C-alpha cells in the first residue's frame, strides 16, 4: 500500500516513473475513505466518477509521454461550500440537501485543469459558521488526532481529511479563522490568502468582505504548489486582484535570516492556554536561532476584534443568505402565500447557529441600530487594519498563536455561543485587515494535542509567509 504521507512531488515522481498509475492511486484513496470516514465523518459526498475520469486523463498523458500538469494525480478534497459541477453541494445545511451545482467554482476549475483528482466534498459548519464543525446538519467531524475531540471549524472536514491521510491536499474557506484554526487543531499547515488573491466565483457566500479560499496540505511546499494554481485574477470575481502571481515555490528557498518578526503583546495576554503559549514561545526561539529578529510590537485594537467581526460577518450573512428562500434551489416547505413559504422554508431549513447569526445581523442592520452597531463596527475595523498597517512598517511578518486553546471535546462548548465566538480572537483580526496568514504545527501540548503557530504577512506577501513557514518546517519546528 502506498504511504499515507504522500506529497505532491512524490506523487509526480511515482507517476512519471510508472511505479503506480493515477487510477491506482485514486482507488487506494477511495478505499481508505471507505474504511476510515465512518469514524471521522470528514466527507459528505464522494465523486468517484469524476475522480476516475480525471485519473484516466492523467494516465493517458503518461502513456503518451506528455508533460504532466502541476497537480497531476493529486487526491484532493473540497469543502462543501464550494460549488462543484455534478457533485452535491450542501454547505453542511439541510436547506441545500440534494442541490447539485451546474458549474465549478473558479478555484476548483483551476485545480481540475492542473490535473488534481477530486475525491469528494468535505463536512463543515453550516454555511461555514462555526469554530468546531458541530454546526453541520450532517453531524460533527471527529479530530483524527483524538476522536472524542473537535477538528476545529468551519473547514473541519478539509483539515481532518488531510491530517488523516484521506486526501493529499484540500481546499477550505476562511472568514474569521475557518482555515487556520482547524489547521492548528488537526496539526496541518493551512493558509488564508490575501483578500482578492484567490477568486471566489462559485463559493457560496457567507460574508463577502471577509471570505477567502485557501489550501490545507501536509507540507509547506504543497501549500505553495496549490497556491500557485488557485491564485490570480478572474473576470468572474470583481473582487479578485490583478496583481501577477509570483512563484511561491521559488520563494521557499530564499533566506529568512534578518527577517523582523513582530510579537504582539496582546496575543499573549490573558486567555491563552499555558501549554499553547509554551509551544508558540518555543517556535519563536527556534526562529531566532535561524537568524530572524523577534521584535515586540503593539496592536492596541485587537481586543475589539471579536465584536467587530461578529457584527460585520453576521450583517453580511443576513444579506447573503436571503437567497435561500425555497424558490430556486434546495428545500421548500409549502405555505399558502409566498411570505409564509419563505418563513417556513427558512425556519425548517437553517440550523440554530445560522438562524442566530441571521437574527444578529438583521438586528445590526435594522433601522435605529445601524449606526450604533454596524457602522460603529466598520469604523473600528479601520482602526484594526491601521494596527496592521503600522506594524508592517516596523516588521516583516507577525507571529501569534492560531488558537488560544487546543482541540476541545465534542459538546464541551456548544451551550454558550458567545464563549465559542471569543476563541476566534487570534484569527478574526487578520480576516478584518484582509492580510494573509498561515497556521503551521509547532508541536503538541503535553505531547498529545497539536498547537498552531500563526504567521501573518502584509497584503499579497504570501511568498514571504510561506518562506518563513518552510524554514520553520525544515528546522524541525513542526514537531517541537
Amino acid at each position, binding site marked *: 500500500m502506498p504511504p499515507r504521507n504522500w506529497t505532491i512531488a512524490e506523487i509526480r515522481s511515482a507517476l512519471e516513473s510508472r511505479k503506480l498509475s493515477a487510477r491506482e492511486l485514486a482507488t487506494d484513496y477511495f478505499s481508505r475513505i471507505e474504511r476510515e470516514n465512518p469514524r471521522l465523518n470528514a466527507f459528505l459526498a464522494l465523486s468517484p466518477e469524476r475522480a476516475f475520469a480525471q485519473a484516466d486523463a492523467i494516465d493517458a498523458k503518461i502513456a503518451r509521454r506528455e508533460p504532466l500538469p502541476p497537480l497531476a494525480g493529486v487526491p484532493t478534497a473540497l469543502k462543501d461550500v464550494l460549488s462543484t459541477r455534478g457533485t452535491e453541494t450542501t454547505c453542511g445545511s439541510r436547506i441545500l440537501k440534494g*442541490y*447539485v451545482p*451546474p*458549474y465549478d467554482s473558479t478555484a476548483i476549475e483551476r485545480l481540475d485543469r492542473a490535473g488534481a483528482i477530486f475525491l469528494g466534498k468535505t463536512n463543515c459548519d453550516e454555511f461555514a459558521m462555526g469554530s468546531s464543525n458541530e454546526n453541520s446538519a450532517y453531524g460533527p467531524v471527529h479530530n483524527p488526532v483524538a476522536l472524542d475531540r473537535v477538528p476545529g471549524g468551519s473547514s473541519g472536514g478539509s483539515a481532518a481529511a488531510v491530517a488523516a491521510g484521506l486526501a493529499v491536499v484540500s481546499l477550505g474557506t476562511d472568514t474569521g479563522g475557518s482555515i487556520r484554526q482547524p489547521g492548528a487543531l488537526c496539526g496541518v499547515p493551512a493558509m488564508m490568502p490575501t*483578500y*482578492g488573491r484567490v477568486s471566489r466565483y462559485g463559493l457560496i457566500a457567507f460574508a463577502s*468582505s471577509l471570505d477567502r479560499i485557501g489550501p490545507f496540505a501536509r507540507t509547506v511546499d504543497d501549500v505553495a504548489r496549490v497556491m500557485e494554481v488557485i491564485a490570480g*485574477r478572474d473576470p468572474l470575481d*470583481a*473582487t*479578485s*486582484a*490583478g496583481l501577477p502571481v509570483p512563484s511561491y515555490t521559488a520563494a521557499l528557498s530564499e533566506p529568512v535570516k534578518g527577517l523582523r518578526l513582530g510579537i504582539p503583546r496582546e496575543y499573549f495576554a490573558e486567555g491563552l492556554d499555558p501549554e499553547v503559549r509554551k509551544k508558540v514561545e518555543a517556535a519563536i526561539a527556534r526562529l531566532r536561532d535561524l537568524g530572524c529578529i523577534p521584535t515586540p510590537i503593539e496592536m492596541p485594537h485587537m481586543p*475589539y476584534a471579536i*465584536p*467587530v467581526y*461578529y*457584527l460585520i460577518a453576521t450583517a453580511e450573512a443576513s444579506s447573503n443568505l436571503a437567497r435561500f*428562500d*425555497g*424558490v*430556486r*434551489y434546495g428545500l*421548500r416547505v*409549502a405555505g*399558502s*402565500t*409566498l*411570505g409564509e*413559504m*419563505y*418563513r*417556513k422554508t427558512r*425556519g425548517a431549513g*437553517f440550523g440554530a447557529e445560522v*438562524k*442566530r447569526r*441571521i*437574527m*444578529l445581523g*438583521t*438586528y445590526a442592520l*435594522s433601522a435605529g441600530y445601524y449606526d450604533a*452597531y454596524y*457602522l*460603529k*463596527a*466598520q*469604523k*473600528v*475595523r*479601520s*482602526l484594526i*487594519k491601521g494596527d496592521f498597517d503600522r506594524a508592517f512598517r516596523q516588521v516583516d511578518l507577525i507571529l501569534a498563536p492560531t488558537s488560544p486553546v487546543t482541540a476541545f471535546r465534542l459538546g464541551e462548548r456548544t451551550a454558550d*455561543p*458567545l464563549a465559542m465566538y471569543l476563541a476566534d480572537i487570534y484569527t478574526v483580526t487578520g480576516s478584518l*485587515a*484582509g492580510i494573509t496568514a498561515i497556521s503551521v504545527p509547532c508541536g503538541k501540548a503535553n505531547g498529545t494535542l497539536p498547537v498552531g503557530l500563526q504567521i501573518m504577512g502584509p*497584503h*499579497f506577501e504570501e511568498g514571504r509567509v510561506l518562506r518563513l513557514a518552510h524554514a520553520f518546517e525544515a528546522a524541525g519546528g513542526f514537531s517541537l
Partner: protein
Amino acid sequence: MKISREDVLRVAELANLELSGAEIETYGAQLASILSYCEKLNELDTSAVEPLAQILVARKETQDKDDAQHLREDSPRDAGIIRDVIQRAPEAATSDPPYFRVPKVIERGE
C-alpha cells in the same frame, strides 16, 4: 441590554424566519448577551474614523490598469444554462421559456 419578545419577532419578520416559541426565548437571551458584549466598542472614540467596508477599495494599486477597477459593461448575455438551473428548483414549469413556480403573491402583512 434587554431584547424583548417583540424585538425578536420584529427581527424574525425582517429576516423571513419562522421561529418556535422556544427559539424566540433562546434567541432573545443570546442576542442580548452578544449585543451587550458588542457595546465594548463604545469605549473607542471613532468620531474622526472613516468606516472600512472593503479592503480592496483601499488598495487601488492592486488592480489592473486596463480593466477599469474591474467594472464590466452592464449588458445582459445568455449563459445558455436556463434549463439546467430551472430543473434544480423545488417547483418549476418546463414551458418555453421555463420558469420558477411560487405560491400566489399577496401583499406582505396578510
